[in-house]
Structure formats: structure tokens, C-alpha cells
């Protein structure tokens, strides 16, 4: 019945479910856990210094911690040597040694703006001039697992949903344990509030009431709200599956804490996507110490997620996007900081992504070099400046949701001739 209801909602375009069966995706059968892929978007909030990570520059005074000849390589990757300067976390050297083979780097991304708020919005949604667009994580959750109780998890950063799916904020993992068994006193299965037959009657009455409401003429907003409410309550029972995956020990590191919540939810099949985020990258003063503290912390968080996914045997279903809303200037200001720069990079790894590859580039002054979208080769004269909408269009295609009706509601406007071909390898 619940499935029927969701289909009814979908037919009405209510943001609860839409009948869509992407050929590339495995869809879960009735009431089974969502099997993946699981999408994780890591965000370095504040604007990272890409020259200390995947786009090293040893010239023109762009940075002070290494020279051109110090730049390291791992396969196709060139990366900044930071081991000597890293304050904790995981330095590039270790990160690339472990993940370089599966890492896709895009350099020379044109964020187009220099401010945090529009930059974060643009990077998260692929649309600069609208507040209505969903983030990629929300969109893929709405397309792939609208009936997952925690379909879209977020821990910060821009998290608009386009009214397609509810956003879930779970600040503390054990709090999920407290709500997992909602129909029992104190969550104890031995003490149900209602006898089973009474609970069944309650659910039946709610179902009938919802069906009756659906037959009434309603304002569109009421349709959406009531359907999402019903789905939230009905789907919440699946949260019981999460408890067994909540680890006894909660890690201390902030990204690892977020990762554990996301992983437990993925493993339980109740979640499609998660925004993981840490801030303080906005290093207007003392750029180098800040970035040397934060980049390793960030990489350690990514590594933690991927390793733990391996332990939980879901690593092969993981898709990881690593981004920030802006880069940092190719020069230092008077306070040894770096200001906002509209050129940057992104990293990708996981299921279906061919690693050990670098696409795009910046020049010696850290300007973006246009590229030919068909060949992905640099083409200063005839190439296109790759902006967030190009990356998002590629992400939608990669996730098999580019033609989903919900995606179509939020077109990115990338001309066919500008679409990145073969981006994922």
C-alpha cells in the first residue's frame, strides 16, 4: 500500500517519488534497503588553496612552502609536497599514495564569482543565479531513493533541496539510536506503546485518511506537505536498520563523525547521499598555517570515509565528490593570507570513475585554461571555460539522472556542444 501511495505521489509530481528506472542504476525492490550507489560530497568550506593540493605551483611566488622542483607526482597526478608542514591529519603524500590510482582531478574550474555565498550555491547546484535549485546531493537522493528515511543527509554547506526531498540533519550518531524504534517506550522492543493489532489499525487509519485527502482538491503546497509527512512517518520505520551499524565508539575528528553517520545510514540502506563539510578554509590571514592544518584534516576525513566504507563492505558503491566554493589568490596579501580566487579544482573517486587521471589545467599564473569538451584536451583558443554547470551536467549523466523528470525541472542550460565527453573515463 505504501508503495502504491508513493507512486500516486510520484504521478502527481509531488516530490515524494517519481517512477523512473535508470538503466544504469540498481533500484531497490519493495521495502528493501537502498543498495547504492552512495554519493558523498565533501566540502572545504571557505575556499581551499588548491596550490597546496592537486594543482601545485612552484613559481611566481604563488606559494611559499615549496619550489617548482619540489612538486611530487603519483601516476598522472602532480601534487604539492606538504608533509613537512602538515599539522596533523593526512598529508598529500600519504593521500596520493593510497588513493591516487582511483582519483580523478579536475583543475581549472571557473567558479565565476568571488564570494562565499553565491560560490557555495553555484558549486552545490550548478546554477549561479537561482535560489530554487537543489544541490546535486539532494537531487540524486530525490531521484534515487525518495522513500529512504534519511535520503539526503547534510552536515553543513549549501543544502537546498528544491522541495524535492527532505533534508536530514543528524548532529550526533547515537541520537539515531534513540529514535530508531519509535513505537516502543524508550525504544525498547519489550515495551511497545500499542499492541500490534492496535498499531496496525492506526496505520490503516492514517493510510485511509491520506487516500481520502488525495482525492480532495488541494493546493499544490498542501499536496506536497501532506505527502511528504506521510512518507516520512511511513519510511521512518526503516531507521531500525541503522542501530546495528552505529559504532560503539564515536570518533573525535569532525569529518570522521559525519562520515560514521553517513556510513551507518548507507549501510542500513536508508540514505542515498550526504554533504560532509568542514569550515575555516577562508585563510585571509596566515594562509599557509591554516591550509596546512585544514587540508590534511580534510584528506584524513576522506580517507576515513573510504576506508570505513571498505570495512563495511560498501566501498564499491561509494561515489565521492570533493570540492570547495572558491580557490585562493596566486599571491599573498599583507597579512600573509590569500584572498578569494574564482579558479579552482575538484576531485572525484569511486564507483564508475576511472582514476589516475587529471583533466583541465591552470596556467603558471593560476588562470583557467579552456578545454575542448569533446576531447578534454586543453584548447586555449577554442576551448570552453569549464564552470560548475558543466561539472554538474556531467555528474547528472554519471549518476543516470540527467533525464529524470526531477532533473528536467532544474535544467542547467549547458549546450550539447559544451558537454564534457568521457569525463569519467
Amino acid at each position: 500500500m505504501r508503495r502504491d501511495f508513493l507512486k500516486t505521489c510520484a504521478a502527481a509530481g509531488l516530490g515524494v517519488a517519481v517512477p523512473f528506472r535508470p538503466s544504469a542504476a540498481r533500484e531497490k525492490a519493495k521495502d528493501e534497503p537502498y543498495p547504492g550507489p552512495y554519493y558523498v560530497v565533501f566540502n572545504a568550506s571557505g575556499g581551499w588553496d588548491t596550490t597546496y593540493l592537486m594543482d601545485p605551483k612552484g613559481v611566481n611566488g604563488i606559494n611559499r612552502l615549496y619550489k617548482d622542483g619540489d612538486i611530487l607526482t603519483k601516476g598522472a597526478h602532480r601534487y604539492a609536497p606538504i608533509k613537512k608542514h602538515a599539522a596533523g591529519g593526512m598529508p598529500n603524500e600519504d593521500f596520493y599514495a593510497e588513493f591516487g590510482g582511483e582519483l580523478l582531478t579536475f583543475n581549472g574550474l571557473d567558479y565565476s564569482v568571488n564570494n562565499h555565498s553565491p560560490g557555495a550555491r553555484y558549486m552545490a547546484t550548478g546554477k549561479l543565479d537561482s535560489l530554487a535549485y537543489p544541490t546535486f546531493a539532494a537531487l540524486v537522493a530525490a531521484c534515487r531513493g525518495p522513500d529512504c528515511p534519511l535520503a539526503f543527509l547534510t552536515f553543513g554547506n549549501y543544502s537546498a533541496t528544491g522541495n524535492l526531498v527532505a533534508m536530514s540533519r543528524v548532529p550526533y550518531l547515537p541520537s539515531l539510536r534513540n529514535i530508531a524504534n519509535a513505537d516502543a517506550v524508550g525504544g525498547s522492543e519489550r515495551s511497545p506503546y500499542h499492541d500490534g493489532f492496535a498499531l496496525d489499525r492506526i496505520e490503516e487509519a492514517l493510510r485511509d485518511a491520506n487516500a481520502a485527502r488525495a482525492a480532495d482538491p488541494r493546493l499544490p503546497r498542501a499536496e506536497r506537505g501532506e505527502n511528504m509527512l506521510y512518507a516520512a512517518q511511513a519510511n521512518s520505520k526503516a531507521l531500525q536498520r541503522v542501530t546495528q551499524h552505529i559504532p560503539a565508539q564515536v570518533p573525535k575528528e569532525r569529518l570522521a563523525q559525519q562520515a560514521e553517520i553517513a556510513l551507518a545510514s548507507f549501510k542500513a540502506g536508508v540514505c542515498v547521499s550526504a554533504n560532509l563539510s568542514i569550515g575555516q578554509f577562508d585563510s585571509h590571514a596566515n594562509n599557509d598555517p591554516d591550509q596546512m592544518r585544514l587540508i590534511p584534516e580534510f584528506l584524513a576525513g576522506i580517507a576515513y570515509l573510504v576506508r570505513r566504507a571498505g570495512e563495511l563492505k560498501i566501498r564499491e558503491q561509494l561515489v565521492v565528490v570533493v570540492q570547495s566554493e572558491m580557490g585562493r589568490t596566486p599571491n599573498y596579501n599583507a597579512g600573509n593570507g590569500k584572498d578569494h580566487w574564482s579558479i579552482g579544482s575538484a576531485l572525484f573517486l569511486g564507483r564508475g570513475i576511472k582514476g589516475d587521471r587529471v583533466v583541465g589545467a591552470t596556467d603558471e599564473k593560476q588562470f583557467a585554461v579552456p578545454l575542448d569538451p569533446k576531447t578534454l584536451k586543453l584548447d586555449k583558443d577554442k576551448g570552453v571555460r569549464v564552470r560548475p554547470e558543466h561539472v554538474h551536467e556531467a555528474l547528472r549523466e554519471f549518476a543516470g539522472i540527467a533525464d529524470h523528470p526531477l532533473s528536467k525541472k532544474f535544467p542547467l542550460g549547458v549546450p550539447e556542444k559544451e558537454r564534457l565527453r568521457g569525463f569519467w573515463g
Partner: protein
Amino acid sequence: MPSLPRLLLALAAGTGLAATARGDGPPAPVGCAASVDHSFEDEVWAKVGARSCLTCHRKGGDAEDSKFVLQDPRKAEGAARDAAMRHNRDAFAKMAAAKEKDQARILLKVVGGLDHGGSEVLKADSVEYRTLAAFVRRVNSPTGAAPLPAADPKAVPFFDGVVMVDDRQLLRRVTLSLAGRLPTATESAAVAKDGVKALPAVLDALMTEDAFYERLREAFNDIFLTLGVDGNPDQNVLSYDHFPTRQWYAKFDLSHIKDEAERRKAGYKLAADYRRALLEEPMRLVEYVVRAGRPFTEVVTADYVMLSPYTARGYGVFDEVKGRFKNPDDPFEYIPVKIKALVGRNKADNQDSATGFYPHAGLLGTFQYLARYPTTETNRNRLRARMYYQHFLGVDVLELAARVSDAAAATAKHPVPTMQAAECVVCHRTLDPVAGLFQDYWRFAEKGVYGKRKGGWFTDMFPAGFEGEDLPAAERWRALPWLGERTAKDPRFAVAMVEHAWYVLTGRKVLLPPKDADDPLYPAKVRAHREQRREVEAVAARFAKGGFDLKAVFKDLVASPFYRADGLATAVKDPCRRAELDDLGLVRMLSPEQLERKVGAVFGEKWGRLNGQLAMLYGGIDSQEVTERAADPSGAMGAIQRILSNDVACKHVARDFARPAAERRLFPGVEPSVVPGASEASDKAIRAAIVHLHERVLGRHDKPDSPEVDRTFKLFAGVVGDAKGRKGVEAKEAYACRQGGAVADDPHYTIRAWRAVVTYLLRRPEFLYE
């Protein structure tokens, strides 16, 4: 549909340019009496002018010296607004008539030609460009061009087919929303007698209640977020340099408490109350202004701050003001106080003041507001300026941030891009002067708020001022009051405050103008925005005219069809009409705080668990990291709703039956001994009890034989019947649900069946939504 000649005549009269374009003589005088041409407003202005031209081509803008200077209609109201729109239409028409060789200059300019200072602002293949080109054709060849698309003359009135909430439900909606309680019998009787006409008086009385001010503070904190000052407020709000008494609580004499543990506990509470009281000061100012019926402009002009006995000690003025408190021991009693100009530990930290007093400016000058939106050496108060625009003028400056062809190149090309690169100047010419007004509040994290920058303010920024007016040197010591005075006079202030009140009532922001001209639903979205905008601006105009009484805004908005819209007479399938109605209807998921209050109102006692982490999980905010409330329920929230419904029903059903019938909230007319199907009378009593529950819990007014009551009856009877047919069913209510003097015996399973009914009702949208 208006005839083509009529449309053309209107345009010609409005522009005064058609004749020129045809070369028939000098321009006709601008038709002042002409009505505003909505086709221009909805098309050329909405798609091109407001979005791509106005930021530079206006007084104070980067292109103010050009021949194409527009006016911002948002800065005017009523007739002045219409005049601004006519001015813009004339300006566009004049530009459309100007030629460069055979081509219209305006069309060359917008794609970056003719050395356009703003470079390319429209793509030649964009809808916006085509809109402008159609306008140019129309101006230059009025007899041959197709008319601009006007509003669909066949369009139904905006609220056609929309069903308004009935008066009783509206009353309940209002009392629950603004005072967290059910209507009183007197209020219900007044509305039953006089309908919505009774509401203003009901609201006048309601807006004297403490609960209203609790809600007001909570909702305005959602907007200003001043509770979210980072760190310890007695250190971050009150600076070490100026407030040596800020940690008074550490030396407060608690020796009368003999038990050491108790004394320590009292000390902790003292500090916690003090810190909370400090954080609450700004929203207490909002409360004071509204409660006292003072002009709401005081949120930017008040020459006082609100202090409590505890915070007055922190400021070091307790002895001066203690006589004014009703209870000098109440940490949360607030009074308005003018504080003296700040005196530092070092002379350099002394505050300039021509009057000897701190230059208060409502919320703007409070330490909490300034600490909540701090600055850094490189941010240079721009965050504060941005928040000022957003909070007090309703302008999201960063929304202006336009895509540029190569922002990095523009940044690198100019020594001071924020003053020289057109792409940057667009925002910074507006933002930086206001940032300069905050220049004397130049202390960074945990170093206080007030203090001048060594070496003076930055010279590589536009100088301090507001919207083209420079701050006079003599006013610098009171730069924020200077700003506040101008803010209060700006028509955008009234609109922004109405938008805040709209948020308080609906839980969401007003619609933004649609931007995607390619969207097939664009006209419908334009209409939805325009209708809502018209309402907001009309309320704002009355607000300003009436002396900025915020209570009047609430009364106005409650009476508005936007607030009362509740359903549809018939189903709407047409996508355009659905898009028009998309945002209509309150349908607001209650916040954790609102839900607790509603449980309290219906059951006489709050649930008490929707706080801390559970509140965050239920979409609440912490005013720091999490600043936007969840609008839709996730599965986690669905689980919490189930827990709440189970638990609240568990606590209250059997307890209610234990009370004398006349004192019961839930079951005044039925006893546990009444079983379904026993007799006609018993079924009637059960249906009457359901009608009562529907009204109390859901606010529904159902008839005993309605399908809704049938459904609930079926649930009740079904549970009782199921229990009867099962072996091993206990004759007592569940252990957890018979606490607090509840009825324990339940031989007919009716108490548990009623509990199932209440659980069911608590999970319904009518309870969980507003």
C-alpha cells in the same frame, strides 16, 4: 484581449518616443497619467532591466554618468513607484530608439559592444536578449511589430477557486501561531458572532500576552540570529577593555547558601542566566518596541539598549538603574537604558561621543549584533554591511553577484578591483560605504567590539556613506545612528519588516522574482510573485503610513487572503495555474518549539522532549552553524513524530479519564465503560467524543456522521473489537501509560483504543502542520 492599436497607443503615450522613432517630430511629453504598463514591467523590466541594468545604471551606480539612468522601483511606493517604473520604461524606449548605423545601440551595448562598461550582460541567443530586441522593434516600428506579451486577459482572478479557511479555524491558527494556545471561549464567541471582523480586537488582546512576545523573540531571532554569538557572551559581547565588571558573577556573594554543592550549583545558574540574559538583549529590544507600541523603526534608531538586572551588572550600571526594575533579582526583566560612551582601560580605547553617551542605533549598534556578525582584517566589515542590507532593507547583496566572463582576470587586472573592475564595483559600490560606517567597531574575535583601526580606515574602499551620500566627518562618532536614521526613511525598510512579519506567520520567505525566462511557467511564476509582492507592498505602505506599528502588520497579514488560503474548490490540473498557486496556503510544518507549545495548549502540558539534540534532529536551529529551519520532514523527523504521538497519548489518555468528567480536556463526554456497538446511545456518545477530539487536537469541526468521524470511529471500534477477539490481552492499561494517577483498569480495552485514536490524530498533518 486589448486591441493592437490600444496597446500601441498606451506604449506611445507612456514612452513619448514612438513619434521620434518614426521621425515624426520631437518626443511627445511623457504621459504622467498613463497607467503602468505591466507588459513592460513583466517583460523588459523583470527580465532585463532589474536584473542586468539597474545595478550600474542608477544614481550612485557605476554608470550613473551615462545617458541611461534608471530608478529602483523598490525604493519607492505607491504613485512614486509607478512613476519610477514609467521613468524606466521611458529610459528604455529612448535607448531603444538610439541607433548606431542601422542597429539599436542598446542591443549592441548589452552584448558588450560599443565599449559597454559592463561588458556583455546578455547573451545574444538568450530569452532576455530576444525580449529586449522585441521591445526595440516595437519602439522603432510600432505598426509592424508584434505586441509585447501582456498578462493573459483570460486569466482568472488570482484567488479564483481558492477556498479560504473558515473563521473558527483561522482563529485557532492565529492563537496557536502567535500565542501558543487554543482560542478562549470569549474569542470563539466573538468570531462566531462577527466573523473575521472580530479578529483585530482578538489580536489586540492577544498581542499583550507574554506568550506572543516569546514567539516574537523566537521568530525574530530566526532572522537576526543574535542568540548565536560565538563563544562565551560575557567575554565576547562585553569587552575586557571597556567592561571591567563583566564577570561580576564570579564575586557574587552566595554565602547564604550553606551547602557547598548547592552553592556551586547556584553559581553555575547565576552565570548561565547572566549569559543567556546578555544574548537575549537584542530580541528584548524588539519585544519592547512592539509591546510599547513604539514605531518599529526603533529597531534601527532606538537610542537605548535593553538591560536586565544581571546584564546591567555586567555593563557596570546596576547601581544606577536598579531602582527601575520591578524585581532586581530577575535575570530576565529588561528595561531600556542609555549607556555612556565607552571608557577604556587605555585612553586610546575611549569612545568618541559628542553627547557623552554611546551612539545607540537600535539593533545595529548592539554588541550582540556586531559580535554575531564579526569582521576580520580582510573582510573589512563587509559581512556586517551585507547583513545590514539583508536584515533591514530586504536586499540580498550577494544575489546581485553576476556571472562574469572571467572573474579571475578582472580581479588580476586592476590594482583595486573592488573600486575599478566593473564586475566587482557592482556590489562594492553599494556595500563598502556601509561597511565604512562600521569602521569604529574594529575588534576581532574575542577582543570585544568597539575600537578604531590603527592608521585609519581603508582608502582602497569606497568611503563611508549610504546609497550615494557620504558620511559627514562630524557624524563619524555616530555613524550607526546616522545609518539608522536613513534606513528608517528608506521605503525598503517598511517592506523588509513586513517580509519579516510574513516569515513569522508563514515560516518561509516571500517569493523572489523568477529569473529563468526560458521556463515555460515563467509567466505564471511572475504572476505569483507580483500578486504576493503587491500584497506585501500594500501592507508596507499602510505600516509606514500608520507610524510603523508592527502589530498592525500582523493584523493586516492575518486578514490577507495569502494567510487565509486553505484549499481549492476543484482540482487544478493546468500546470500554469498550479504554478501560480504553488506557494499558496500556509502548510507550515511546526518547529520543535511550536510543536511543544501546541502539545501544551491541547494537553495542558508540553511534551518536554523536543529540545537539545532531538530538537536539532527535528529541524531546529542553533543560531550558529544551523541557521535555517527544516521545511519538510525527513524520516528521522517522521520517527520523532511517531514517538511524540505515542508518548503524548500514553501520558494523557488514561490520566484524563482519571479526572472528573467536567475537568477533562480530552474526554469530557464519554467514559471507558462505553463500548462501540453496545447501543445506539453508546455509538452516539463515542462519535460525540470523536468530534470533540477532532476539534481539540486537529481544529476540525466535523459532523458526527462525517467520513472523518466514521474513520476514527472505525479505528476505535476496530481496536476494541480486535482486543475482544484475542486471548491473553491484559485488562489493564500498559504499565508505562498508567503513571501519574491514571486509570489503570481497562477491562474493555477502551482506554487503549482511545489512546490509539489520540496517537492517530497526533500523527495527522492538521496537528503537525500549521
